[in-house]
């Protein structure tokens, strides 16, 4: 087995395309999982059982079934019901939904870690309920969970290659395509492997900087 720099340079244009798609899926998937997870957490705290129960069942189901199966389901089954989205949109939705069932647990832990005295002070000042949440509880809870959310961003990054199975040409998809066309596997796969390490590392640096900014 020999290393061929020409294969590397031949792959690079495809690599950049793949990188763009991977980062896009990661950024949008993260945003969706952060938002949906918060929505689930807050819904799970409503006093009505008729809200908590269905949310609990759905999120439990999504968390305990494989992302790969969910991808197949969303991509091949939903169109039969007349719901068709682009492969990337479907992929972003699947990742965001799947990881929202994890981030919801992170948020819950963060909210429960806010001392009871903060709720009591908000009550003593007669703050409206929504204001207690948005100005007092959530800012403190989210600050606490940034590191945990950051870990899920890295986990999501490592799950983006799954999107390949629904025809999204992210990094692994591009590497595979190039390999099959040129019968050179080592170089493209090595390039994307290095890229994954670099992105993970940069992401963790970014999260650490964010933590430092937030935790004062």
């Amino acid at each position, binding site marked *: 087995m020999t290393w061929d720099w020409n294969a590397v340079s031949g792959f690079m244009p495809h690599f950049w395309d793949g990188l763009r798609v991977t980062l896009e899926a990661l950024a949008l998937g993260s945003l969706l999982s952060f938002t949906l997870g918060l929505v689930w957490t807050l819904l799970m705290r409503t006093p009505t059982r008729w809200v908590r129960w269905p949310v609990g069942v759905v999120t439990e189901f999504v968390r305990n079934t494989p992302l790969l199966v969910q991808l197949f389901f969303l991509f091949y089954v939903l169109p039969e019901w007349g719901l068709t989205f682009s492969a990337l949109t479907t992929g972003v939705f699947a990742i965001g939904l799947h990881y929202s069932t994890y981030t919801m647990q992170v948020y819950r832990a963060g909210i429960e870690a806010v001392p009871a005295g*903060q709720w009591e*002070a908000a*009550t003593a*000042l007669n*703050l*409206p309920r929504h204001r207690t949440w948005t*100005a*007092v509880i959530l800012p403190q809870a989210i*600050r606490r969970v940034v590191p945990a959310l950051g870990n899920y961003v890295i986990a999501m990054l490592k799950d983006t290659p799954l999107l390949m199975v629904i025809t999204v040409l992210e990094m692994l998809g591009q590497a595979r395509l190039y390999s099959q066309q040129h019968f050179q596997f080592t170089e493209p796969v090595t390039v994307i492997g290095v890229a994954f390490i670099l992105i993970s590392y940069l992401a963790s640096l970014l999260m650490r900087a964010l933590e430092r900014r937030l935790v004062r």
Partner: protein
Amino acid sequence: MSADTPLTKDTEPGAGANTAGGELIRLAGVTKRFGTNTVLDDLNFTVDPGKHVTLIGPSGSGKTTILRLLMTLTQPDEGTIAVDGEQLFPAPEKQIREVRKKIGMVFQQFNLFPNMNVLRNITEAPVQVLGMSKDEAEARARELLELVGLADKCDARPTRLSGGQQQRVAIARALAMRPRVLLLDEVTSALDPELVAGVLDLLRDIARSTDITMLCVTHEMGFARDISDQVLMFDGGRVIESGSPEKIFSDPEQDRTREFLGAVL
């Protein structure tokens, strides 16, 4: 200290007009249990407007629970609570919100909001609850910070302040809501000894220069003697003795009171 400026109450004329019979706070038949433990046992008492009442007694005797009931942080199992002639318990949520505007509380652990600077800790509720403009609320917050001796700490994070300073901010925050009743829950218990005197002096000033009604749970008997119009001695969820501080501290009628004072003085 010229305490009058920010504190003199510019209450609207007729405020307190609905305090029938003169009393501002009325607890009737209040019982509170935690599991099988009865913390307050068929408690009845009233507080007249402007009075300073100190609750003393051994820990676990239900003093703090009374303040928490008045602040609606917990609900009684039986009985009624009224403030300024309006029912606080039992009452619908909307009415609780209205009555609660008249009550402020300072906590043992300060409970400042660590995600806001000192100024916003004080302006948040006046803006959100009283509908004050941001400028007006800030101007008033600065006056109150001046009063508590922390005018230079507007932009500081609460976590950067000493315990004593945090508690002064908490007092300013409570006062910013212009409460008619101020509940003080062991406000110096979490402070380092050398910081206690400053906070107590501030509260003495407030007690002297305002007509705010105060309910105070404290272990600082000297302070209780200074500011109180009335002292209530608690034991086993009941008031076992009440009277002027002179009477309670120098010539209590109950052996239990004498025993307790002997232990803490």
